[in-house]
């Protein structure tokens, strides 16, 4: 994803107003050049929307619901220059965002590919007074609007209110290019007026103590290479616990499937760092966390598996002949019903005493000083030495397992390699800042290609088994639609076929990963003897 969060954000002709500013005072000055008419003061309300992980913003877009009087519309704009990309009027003064499926096609087509499975959620809300000064030329033709937004309040996600400075916005009228420069000259001579350096969204966020792109599921954590392993592991755990907690509310409300996904990634990463660095963790803590995080992985699995089916449903349909696609609909209804139950079970687990204790103990461990605990053998060694060792071991294991694989190897062997690759990937991501950025990125990219093949193989394997399992459950529940079972069978067989194709393609994927230059790079960066040679 192309990150546009660093684009210049002055996207409008806009000035911050000093307190006490009034258009009444400005109008007589502009009267020398224009016929001015002041409109009555009205109210405005703006709500900015984005996905939890800022997908629109990262693509240089901003989605706003704007209400002025009784008029309300959604507007998708470029963050850099404020240019409108698509709009949709909203009927009435509804507070909720319409679903993508009912949005006009221009807006939907601009948004849907960017946000994919993520939901649009309110980011920040503003409301206040709005007044317009209309500037006309000698032919009584409108050539410019000046819009003043004052007494504005920003509401953050917790409902807290913050005061936003007043702004005056120049709205040129197309085809009348001289007016903006004339008005700018007047405004720049007004005492206390300051050009806006931030977009309205960035300004509102700043006032609430936030900034755009303050959430990413990517592991970006800087660690001092000379820090003790104990401290480094705790820092990573703190980061991952925070990722879990950030995603927890959205996951429990099932706002979209990515909350659960990102939550589970954080859990898996915790399990991974614990097992990879277990010699730096006291044994009793390690045993406890290992068992409890395995439990957490288990209780979140059913909901995720079902989420995947719903996300993939249209793709599954596309694997069927057009006249057979509707036969799969009862399966979707069944999945939806199961999903509801799965999320209910998930809620119970997350609200359980067991979960509460797990988080409390993890927090206590993270905050504990090394002298307060039984010292693990590698706890005081530098993290750099440990990361070298762990990554090299893990890489060697991946190579060993991959070299053994053939197109006739059992699925379990592919799964084992997939798990090893995932562990290696996590290690590379945990410790990426200890190594040269470009080289690590290169290795991660190659590993990712291998993981894509193995991941798809795993999905096909699990899903073909699950399809048969679900068909059995549906039959037990009295859903006896022969056509549905038939198409589910077709899909399961198709998945078996795909598994064979993926096994055959594995060789080429591995060939790329195991090129000499990458082998040498792994050795140069991580192999302890090579480094000391």
């Amino acid at each position: 994803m192309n990150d546009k969060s660093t684009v210049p954000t002055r996207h409008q002709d806009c000035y911050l107003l000093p307190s006490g500013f009034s258009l009444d005072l400005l109008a007589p000055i502009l009267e020398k050049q224009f016929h001015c008419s002041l409109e009555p003061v009205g109210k405005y309300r703006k709500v900015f929307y984005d996905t939890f992980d800022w997908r629109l913003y990262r693509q240089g877009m901003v989605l706003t619901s704007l209400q002025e009087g009784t008029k309300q519309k959604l507007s998708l704009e470029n963050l850099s220059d404020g240019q409108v990309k698509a709009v949709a009027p909203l009927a009435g003064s509804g507070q909720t965002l319409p679903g993508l499926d009912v949005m006009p096609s221009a807006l939907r087509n601009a948004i849907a590919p960017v946000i994919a499975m993520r939901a649009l959620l309110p980011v920040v809300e503003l409301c206040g007074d709005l007044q317009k000064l209309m500037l006309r030329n000698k032919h009584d033709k409108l050539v410019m609007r000046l819009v003043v937004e004052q007494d504005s309040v920003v509401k953050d996600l917790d409902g807290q209110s913050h005061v936003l400075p007043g702004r005056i916005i120049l709205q040129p009228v197309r085809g009348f290019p001289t007016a903006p420069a004339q008005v700018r000259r007047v405004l720049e001579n007004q005492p206390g007026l300051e050009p806006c350096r931030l977009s309205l969204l960035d300004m509102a966020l700043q006032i609430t103590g936030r900034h755009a792109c303050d959430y990413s599921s990517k592991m970006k954590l800087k660690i001092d290479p000379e820090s003790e392993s104990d401290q480094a592991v705790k820092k990573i755990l703190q980061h991952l616990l925070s990722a879990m907690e950030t995603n927890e509310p959205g996951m429990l409300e099932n706002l979209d499937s990515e909350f659960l996904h990102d939550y589970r990634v954080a859990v898996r990463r915790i399990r991974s760092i614990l097992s990879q660095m277990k010699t730096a963790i006291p044994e009793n803590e390690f045993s406890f966390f290992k068992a409890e995080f395995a439990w957490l992985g288990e209780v979140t699995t059913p909901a995720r598996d079902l989420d995947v089916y719903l996300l993939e449903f249209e793709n599954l349909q596309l694997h069927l002949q057009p006249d057979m696609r509707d036969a799969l609909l009862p399966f979707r209804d069944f999945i939806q019903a199961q999903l509801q139950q799965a999320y209910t079970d998930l809620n119970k687990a997350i609200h359980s005493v067991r979960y509460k204790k797990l988080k409390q103990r993890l927090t206590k461990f993270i905050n504990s000083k090394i002298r307060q605990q039984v010292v693990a053998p590698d706890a005081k060694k530098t993290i750099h030495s440990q990361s070298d060792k762990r990554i090299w071991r893990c890489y060697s294991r991946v190579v060993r397992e991959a070299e053994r694989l053939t197109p006739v190897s059992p699925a379990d062997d592919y799964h084992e390699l997939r798990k090893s690759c995932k562990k290696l990937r996590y290690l590379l991501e945990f410790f990426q800042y200890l190594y040269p950025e470009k080289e690590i990125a290169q290795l991660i990219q190659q590993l990712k290609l291998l993981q894509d093949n193995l991941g798809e193989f795993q999905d096909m394997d699990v899903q073909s088994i699950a399809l048969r399992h679900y068909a059995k459950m549906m039959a037990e529940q009295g859903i006896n639609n022969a056509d549905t079972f038939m198409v589910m069978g077709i899909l399961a067989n198709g998945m078996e076929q795909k598994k064979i194709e993926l096994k055959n393609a594995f060789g080429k994927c591995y060939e790329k990963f195991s090129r000499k230059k990458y082998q040498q790079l792994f050795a140069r960066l991580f192999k302890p003897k090579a480094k000391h040679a």
Partner: protein
Amino acid sequence: MKILASYNIKGGVGKTAAAVNMAYLAAQQGWRTLVWDLDPQGAASFYFRIKPKVKSGVKGLIKNNHALSDIIKGTDFEDLDLIPADFSYRNMDLMLDEKKNPAGHLRKLLKPLAADYDYVFLDCPPSISLVSESVFNAADVLLVPVIPTVLSVRTLEQLLKFQGKHDLGDVRVMAFFSMVDRRKNLHKTIVDNPPFNDNLFIKTEIPYASDIEQMGIHRAPLPSYTANSRSAQAYSAMWDEVSTAIK
């Protein structure tokens, strides 16, 4: 971007009023709307207080392929822009005739604006010519105002015949009764028993009313200064009906 052309072979039937008022209503809803005043008389430009003058005239547009985006003017209303008329548009036929694909040329000119506007209203000159043919090819909808009189209905028949004879793409004809005076027996009879098939005429009718004529005095769309008048309400109902039908 949907393109709606307000068109009739006959003049003085309410084409410009329909284009201007419906464009205004679309913009008021928040849609990015453009009116192209194709009529050299420049009535729509007059209503929007914009000088009916285009740099380099029709020659620049058709012969020299100047971009429409360079000649767009904002009206006094938010989200509503205009491509002004120009007296040289009277020669548009001749210019189009020199093009390789005259019938497809207006569509080609409008295409680059697709990302900027949700609705484009073409206010067409009264005639049936190469310009009309190019309009038919560009438009998604032909809005045809018909006064409930024999001669006006006859022009609609001529248009339908023309459409039958020529390949005019997927343009949808939506006729509506305009300048209806129900005190007149003939008007009442024709409106109550619309000619042609059932779906050709939309339900809303535009009354004969002096407030529509006064648009020329106010130089503004009717609903902008008398939103609750019967005529303004009629345009509003018509826009609801048309926009729902073409959604």
